[in-house]
């Protein structure tokens, strides 16, 4: 323990903040809020530092710290960053700070709220920074539980209780499936270590038997899939986000949800590449469910929150499509989509939260023509909605286009439909929202809106919008860092593809190919 990694400090700040808040008297509202802001700001600054100092030319994880914890079963506290998570951690820290900023909307039980918020933030950052399976999962659960409580206690709308149950049950089941899968993976790999780096290396040298791969992979795929609202397990998401307090929706939709995708890229694919190949067809078709089906659903929504909730589910489809392509371009694209969508989802939920506080409804048949009254929030919202339909200049465009290029060769048909979903369906619902809420003549009864004029109030929106634009204009800031790690994952997958040629050549139906895949022994065995 001679030196402590920056990453550890980064994780420590939110937890420290949580402890300080727990110790502070309940009446010190200003102090509580100041602690929350300060601790997230410190995390953000450290995340920026890590991002800037990260050296893309090294393949090994950087800023590593490893402390052995339970030697008997190989659990250690192991954190570090590589190309896969460096951008995600930065994004998480940005969103966390923005979420702390917009939390001024909370009017009751400040102490508990900020405590949970900081625990959630710490858990989120920890989950993405962990290189140990146990802590990876533990931090995720640590972030998930405050989510449920916050929706239940500080949520909004009539559906709050129902939504809380629904999101709790869905996510618990998803997490449980993933947990079973992870434990099974650990055991089948020999049960000696929870360390991801060691596991990946071990499993690429001596892959798991196809039978066990085909047993475990679906557990992880659907477990993680449920956490990311993979179609048709997505119905918790729009409802849950509509009911959640603003900061919770921002953090969950923006960052925590990406945990599942990250798990697929970090664990499931590199450790079980052969099973991944046979299951990716399934994923490619399910992601159409996200992109097209949820896009269509979003078109029909009357409530802005449900609309952006559904559109957020639809956007996850692009990340799934990138993963399903299993090549360098697709995986890089998927990570770009994850980061871009994280920032965008946080921005849209923050804006929707602001509007809701002003209007107390987000039904689009009631609020109309708001732009002249709230030029700042209106303009930022319009930009955010345009970013949501994939406008160049915002980071989302880069991610989506990269995914399309990556997936085109494997799945031309699916990609063509996804392009339709991105350009046309996305355009339709986003522009309809702009048209009804911001354009047109104003509606009676909503003429006492106040715009965000205070620079501090504007800060979170500008921060998120600025990062979207920054990565949209200079995508190489991200892609150059992601590329080497994504390449490593893609290469592992490619090796497996060569060794399992018989599976690839069988262009039968999806189920048939997966059945065959499970029966054909690979040449490596």
């Amino acid at each position, binding site marked *: 323990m001679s030196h402590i990694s920056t990453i550890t400090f980064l994780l420590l700040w939110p937890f420290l903040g949580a402890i300080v808040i727990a110790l502070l008297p309940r009446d010190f509202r200003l102090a509580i809020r100041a602690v929350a802001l300060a601790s997230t700001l410190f995390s953000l600054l450290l995340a920026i530092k890590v991002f800037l100092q990260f050296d893309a030319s090294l393949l090994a994880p950087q800023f590593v710290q490893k402390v052995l914890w339970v030697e008997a079963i190989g659990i250690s506290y192991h954190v570090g960053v590589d190309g896969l998570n460096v951008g995600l951690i930065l994004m998480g820290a940005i969103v966390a700070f923005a979420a702390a900023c917009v939390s001024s909307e909370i009017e009751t039980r400040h102490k508990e709220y900020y405590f949970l918020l900081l625990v959630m933030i710490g858990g989120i950052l920890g989950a993405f920074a962990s290189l140990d399976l146990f802590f990876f999962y533990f931090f995720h659960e640590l972030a998930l539980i405050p989510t449920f409580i916050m929706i239940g206690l500080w949520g909004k709308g009539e559906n709050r209780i129902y939504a809380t149950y629904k999101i709790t049950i869905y996510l618990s089941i998803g997490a449980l499936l993933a947990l079973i899968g992870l434990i099974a993976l650990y055991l089948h790999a020999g049960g000696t270590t929870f360390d991801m780096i060691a596991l990946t290396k071990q499993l690429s040298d001596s892959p798991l038997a196809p039978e066990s791969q085909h047993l475990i992979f679906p557990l992880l795929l659907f477990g993680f899939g449920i956490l990311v609202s993979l179609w048709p397990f997505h119905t918790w998401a729009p409802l849950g986000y509509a009911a959640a307090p603003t900061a919770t929706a921002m953090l969950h939709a923006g960052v925590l949800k990406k945990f599942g995708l990250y798990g697929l890229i970090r664990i499931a694919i590199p450790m079980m590449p052969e099973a991944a190949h046979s299951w990716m067809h399934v994923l490619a078709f399910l992601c159409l469910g996200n992109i097209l089906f949820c896009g269509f659903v979003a078109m029909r929504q009357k409530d802005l929150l449900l609309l952006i909730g559904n559109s957020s589910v639809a956007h996850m489809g692009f990340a799934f499509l990138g993963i399903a392509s299993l090549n360098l371009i697709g995986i890089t694209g998927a990570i770009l989509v994850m980061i871009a969508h994280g920032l965008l989802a946080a921005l849209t939920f923050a804006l929707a939260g602001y509007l809701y506080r002003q209007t107390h409804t987000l039904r689009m048949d009631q609020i109309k023509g708001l732009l002249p009254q709230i030029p700042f929030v209106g303009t930022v919202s319009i930009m955010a909605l345009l970013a949501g339909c994939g406008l160049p200049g915002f980071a989302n465009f880069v991610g989506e*286009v990269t995914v399309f290029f990556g997936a085109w060769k494997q799945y031309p048909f699916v990609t063509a439909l996804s392009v339709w979903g991105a350009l046309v369906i996305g355009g339709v619902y986003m522009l309809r929202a702009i048209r009804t809420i911001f354009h047109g003549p104003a509606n009676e009864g909503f003429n006492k809106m106040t715009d965000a004029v205070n620079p501090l109030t504007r800060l979170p929106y500008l921060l998120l919008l600025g990062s979207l634009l920054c990565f949209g204009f200079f995508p190489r800031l991200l892609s150059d860092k992601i590329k080497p790690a994504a390449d490593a994952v893609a290469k592992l997958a490619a090796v497996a593809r060569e060794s399992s040629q018989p599976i690839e050549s069988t262009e039968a139906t999806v189920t048939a190919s997966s059945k065959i895949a499970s029966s054909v022994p690979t040449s490596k065995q």
Partner: protein
Amino acid sequence: MVLFLPLLAAIGIVVFAQRNRDVSAALSIGAIVAGFLLTILFVAINGWHPITGQVTALWFAVGDLRIEFGVRLDPLSLLMLLVVTGVGGAIHIYSRGYMREDPNAGRFFASLSLFTFSMLGIVLSSGFMQMFIFWELVGVSSYLLIGFWYERPSAADASKKAFLTNRLGDFGFLLGILMVWASLGSLDFQTLESAVHANPDALGALATCAGLLIFCGAVGKSAQFPLHVWLPDAMEGPTPVSALIHAATMVAAGVYMLCRVFFLLNAPALEVIAWIGGFTSLLAAVIAIQQNDIKRILAYSTLSQLGYMVMAVGLHGTTPAMYHLTTHASFKALLFLGAGSVICALHHEQDIWKMGGLKKRMPTTYWTFLLGTLALCGIPPFSGFFSKDEILTQAFHHNPVLFGIAVLVAMLTAFYMFRLIFVAFRGTARSEASAHAHESPGIMTSPLVFLSIPTVFAGFWGIEGLFAGHGEIGMAHSPESLIGHLFSPFSHAPASAFAGIGAAGFGIMAAWRLYQDASADPIPEMIGRLSSVIRNRFYFDEIYGKLIACSHDALAQFSDSVDRWVIGGLLVKGIHGTTDLAGRALRLLQTGNIQTYALLFAIGVAGLLYFMLGNP
């Protein structure tokens, strides 16, 4: 440099000068005029074929995917650069006068500069992806400008429609790009061109498909049939916007793009392109005959002329297409600005039957408008005659049917334009407003005069030499050759030249006979019901509305109900037993007691671990 000036202006306006109209106008105008002068300077120093033809910088790269941003300078892009900055500059100056009373002029000029930036981005782009990015940006700036008066429902709807229709085209465009990239492995125009030249079958069986998909982009942006419906509605934007974006530059981007990627288009694809162009030009010309809104008449005329250009590309005539694009940009911008001047003078009255007798009251506007009309109708020696004649010649040599259509369209063009002239400017005033109209101020009339110079004289220059390779705009060197050039259409291809003039003359005569002293439109009586069908634009909007309602919206409705009742309802409620039970259990934990939760969680993990460790 030219490219980034407008962007800087746009950012500058947004950040500093949103409230100050004068500063924002000055920034915006300054940027584009400087761009124009720089372009002229560049051409003067380096000629039309600069040595550094292409400069690129890597923007994004992953694996095989390399997206480069660059500047490609060749005659095609330099010519287009001159058009955009020259015509655009005149329109920017005019806007200063037109928008002088609008409180949001700052936002207007910011969007205008954003548009100029994106348009120049398209013009200079060196690769497909860069073009697509700016293509989208042009779409969004057009969206912002059409919807400038967003409080008017019609403007807000029109902007939405324009954006979405363009998105349909972009859908095909992006698929085409993906297809080209997948087969040829590059997105750079230069690399692609040499690859196709080295091996004409490089695209294989996909060639036609890819070509047509890319053409989809042009169909959207240049408003060709069947995606033409957005352009007339786009007239809801301020008139300078209609002139700049929806007449001179943006809509021409489709034609420009086709010329740029011409090497990718094979014979079957070109055939389709030619027919779509021809059909659009005829359809729009017919509709224009029965429109009464001055801007809509011009909008349909733009559609029709764009159809001409697209047809020319389809008939292997990129040079005539670009020539017509250039001349059309100046005279159509002139016509729109003239219309804007009239609209301003009549306090935003756009119905031509409420005008009349404007010739005396607004002489500058009238005479420049007349020059523009003559050029549009293809009357020698105005510029439109030469460019139109080249297209007609092209059609005459390649496809007699399309030649017939083109001549017919020329006749219709002359007819509806002179209908407009006779009704709006001649005769007597038909309303209070038109009786008291005044000429517009100098800041609006001077761009009219400036634009009428190329309108009249651009025909003498010709651009064939530019593309033939020796790099001089063909400004005749001696008086004899100038005259020779003037009469060359008659000596080269007399049939098409005389057919064009004859058609135009016939159209003018017909308009003169029908509308010289008309107080109401006589056509509805002559052709009855057909007239209302034409007036309602062949019900395209209604048909599309129905079509979308029973396809896209129905799918959405279906998905929504499936989502709500099947996935959300049946499946979830089907396991409601467990849900309810778990829910009740959870309610106990909902007290916020975190210790209990953490404890339960730890027990759960421990139990699972024990279970799994015990039975491996």
